């Protein structure tokens, strides 16, 4: 925990928040989300089958500052625009692949907003270049707050 103070803060925040079912946000299975600060908007697949959240990160460069590791990467929003994001690396996620091998993905924290529901979320940086949506929103974002209606898409207005 000493190495990852942001991780500890997220876990503490998770333990405090338990809204009742009636307050949960109902969204479709494809939604536009925004990332704060700066508010780049991306279409995300809202996937109850995924534990965690990933983003399609290209050209990842690593920088050391005050002994801390920062990552700068580019995200293609599939709309003809590319956004650049820079965050501290807070860990590594080991992701089992379907061929039985494992993949190591760097983890950053992004504040993701879906409608008015904003949440600091651990996000792994992945190669999603062959996939239609730049972001996969997993249960780590949804837990205790979001319900998915798989018959709908694009129901929420991205918040700036």
């Amino acid at each position, binding site marked *: 925990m000493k190495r990852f103070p942001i991780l500890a803060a997220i876990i503490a925040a998770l333990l405090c928040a338990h809204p009742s*079912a009636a307050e*949960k946000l*109902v969204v479709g*299975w494809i939604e536009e989300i925004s990332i704060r600060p700066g508010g780049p908007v991306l279409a995300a*697949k*809202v*996937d*109850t*089958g*995924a534990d965690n959240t990933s983003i399609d990160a290209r050209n990842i460069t690593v920088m050391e500052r005050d002994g801390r590791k920062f990552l700068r990467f580019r995200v293609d929003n599939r709309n003809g625009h590319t956004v650049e994001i820079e965050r501290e690396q807070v860990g590594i996620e080991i992701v089992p*692949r*379907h*061929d039985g091998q494992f*993949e190591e993905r760097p983890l950053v924290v992004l504040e993701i907003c879906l409608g008015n529901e904003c949440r600091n979320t651990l996000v792994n940086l*992945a*190669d*999603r270049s*062959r*996939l239609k949506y730049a972001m*996969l929103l997993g*249960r780590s974002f*949804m*837990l*205790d707050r*979001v*319900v*998915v*209606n*798989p*018959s709908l898409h694009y129901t929420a207005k991205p918040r700036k």
Partner: protein
Amino acid sequence: MKPFLFALMTIVPIVSAIQVMASEPMKTVGLIENVRVDPGGLIFSAKLDTGADHSSVNAHAVHRFKRRGVRWVRFQLISGDGKTVSLERELVRLASIKRPGGKKQKRPVVMLTICLGNVSREVQVNLVDRSRFNYKMLIGRSFMRDALLVDPSLKFTVEPQCPQRQTE
């Protein structure tokens, strides 16, 4: 007479559709639910996956064959508690599966009837070796459409309660 018939043919389906929607509101279920799969009647603990177009189930010994010029599949379904049924179904299609960073796979797809709570639907199901996964069945959006919402914070909220399947 003709306009009257036309109006009747238009209004009746619309009214009955509205009645169905009113009597069967969309139900919210959990991430993991027990479902029954017919034919065979096996019970699976299934994961409701809004990221999947179609459902998939743990199948072993999958063999394709032809019967009177029609493509069929013979396979065994194996549930989480090890119960097995052998089935033969017509092949609907071969699905190509895209994997992030992986190569394409071809999977046989057959029609199976899934019962979750009181929702019973015959849908396309991919036959996959899921023996190394915790949940031997995934429920995709084609089963959930217009009937179910998924609350990923809940588990085991309903038991399969559909009328038993009629003989074919």
